[in-house]
């Protein structure tokens, strides 16, 4: 099946600056795809190229199999919410959606659709007010409604929850959830909690380069399945060298020492060795008079995965330099 979005070798330069560097991604249909990166990583630039607002220096983008060069036919496949949604301030919320709906003549009963969307995003009561008086959260919700008014198969949301209070963020994430079954959602953010909550796939971008792209589950598992966190009561940091001697342990990172207990993170050569290593740790502790407080596979969140990927990329860049 053709991916919802296919990006091949996308590069975007602004003079000497390479904002996006040879990015290739395939976003399957129906995915809620989180696009992660720090500020300036190239997320917005990528989004703008996909939205057809910016031209790629090299590479290609297709949405639902249609090339970006197809112009309006291509943009009919997309709904786009930019980072700072801008609307005609003299229009009311209802007029904004009616204006957007007017570009999709195939919508049946556009008036009803507009009213339903206004209710869905919680703006029914404010629909007759000029958007120049809307708060940031209201504009964001109106922007999402405008992005989906044409029922496009793909929706691009650039930082949809940025600048919103917790309630507003929850509303936006709920809306993304409600789109999940019918629409492919490609959204950028640096709020990692949000990604972990709603995304089933994730890509991490750093300084224009793709560091990782996988399902959220795989990305978390790949970073944690070969690690064990061990806390030994009565042990000193030097016990790390003993742990490193356990067969199957690749290396040991010494963590915090507190109240006579010391923490270690063991990286295993193979993920299957977890049970054997746990047993060996218990045996080692008994032999040296330590009490095992904890010896379990490391559970990490997306934030740690993100930080590790970015740090590794930066370290490798520095090494090359």
């Amino acid at each position, binding site marked *: 099946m053709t991916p919802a979005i296919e990006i091949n070798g996308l590069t975007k330069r602004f003079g000497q600056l390479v904002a996006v560097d040879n990015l290739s991604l395939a976003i399957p249909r129906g995915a809620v795809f989180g696009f992660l990166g720090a500020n300036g990583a190239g997320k917005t630039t990528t989004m703008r190229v996909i939205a057809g607002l910016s*031209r790629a220096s090299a590479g290609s983008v297709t949405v639902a199999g249609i090339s970006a060069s197809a112009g309006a036919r291509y943009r*009919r496949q997309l709904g786009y919410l930019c980072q700072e949604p801008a609307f005609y301030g003299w229009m009311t919320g209802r007029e904004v959606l009616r204006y957007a709906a007017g570009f999709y003549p195939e919508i049946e009963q556009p008036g009803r659709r507009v009213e339903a969307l206004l209710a869905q995003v919680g703006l029914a009561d404010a629909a007759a007010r000029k958007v120049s008086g809307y708060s940031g959260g209201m504009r964001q919700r109106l922007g999402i409604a405008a992005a989906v008014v044409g029922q496009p198969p793909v929706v691009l949301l650039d930082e949809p929850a940025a600048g919103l209070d917790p309630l507003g963020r929850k509303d936006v994430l709920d809306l993304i959830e409600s789109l999940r079954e019918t629409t492919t959602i490609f959204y950028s953010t640096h709020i990692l909690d949000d990604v972990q909550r709603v995304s089933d796939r994730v890509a991490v971008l750093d300084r224009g380069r793709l560091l990782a792209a996988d399902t959220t589950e795989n990305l978390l598992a790949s970073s944690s399945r070969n690690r064990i966190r061990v806390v030994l009561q009565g042990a000193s940091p030097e016990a790390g060298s003993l742990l490193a001697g356990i067969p199957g342990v690749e290396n040991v990172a010494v963590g915090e020492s507190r109240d006579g207990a010391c923490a270690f993170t063991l990286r295993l050569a193979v993920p299957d060795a977890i049970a054997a290593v746990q047993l060996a740790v218990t045996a080692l502790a008994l032999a040296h008079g330590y009490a095992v407080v904890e010896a379990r596979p490391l559970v990490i969140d997306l934030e740690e995965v993100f930080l590790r990927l970015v740090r590794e990329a930066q370290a490798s860049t520095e090494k090359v330099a």
Partner: protein
Amino acid sequence: MNANSIALGGRVQANASSPMTGFGRFLSKEVREWVRTRRFVIMALAATGLALSGVIIERVHQLTGDTSKPINLDPSFNLTNVGWDSLVPLLAAFGTMSLLTAERERGTLGWSLSMPLSRPAVLLAKLLAAVSFIGITAVVIPEIVSVAVIRFVYDGFPHGQQLFWEPLGGFAAGAFVIALNLAVSTFVRSQAAVVGTTLCFVLTITAMAGLLSQDLQRFLPSGIYDFVTAYGKGAPTHPETLVAWVMGTALLMVVAVVQFGRREV
């Protein structure tokens, strides 16, 4: 957000697109924007004020006893005093300097273009709406008010030639300036740069015209006002000027479309 969830997304549309996709929708937005943002009223007031200052000047000279030059109280002459050839282009230059730049700065251009709307459609809709509204605000309304004032101040009506052809000549010159403004807007980003470049361009053409022989002047689109007024009087005209005006306006729009198509929004 409430719980009455509806089907929000999800169907593939495969409609063909044309270079004018979204034109009607965008034109209707442009028209409403002219009216709703009070640009219409401001332009009409400015144009009418400037026109009336030309219309009543002879009566003011008469009332103040200014005898430095002969006073002409002929209604037709005083409608000509409006100076349509400079009033309309000047108002067109200032009234349309923000057509593209303001939308780009606000981000609404990017938003509109992220929908099925072609770039040529944006330019053509803006041109048509601007030409229509400049025509209404800088020609039709000032003319109606001026004629009413002339009737009251000079006790008569202007002749048909002054009533129709002079404003039409000014309108044609204004349309050229609007096309020029749009073309310039696709190259520069600030409103000041747009109006500055346009006025420089117009002044350069006017200055050049003064240096050229009569034979060459007829090939300048800036001669459209003289062409239209001469045509109205039944005086000899050079069709080359009309062709130059049509071709010049069309060329400006082609340049605008090509450049706008290449630029980042």
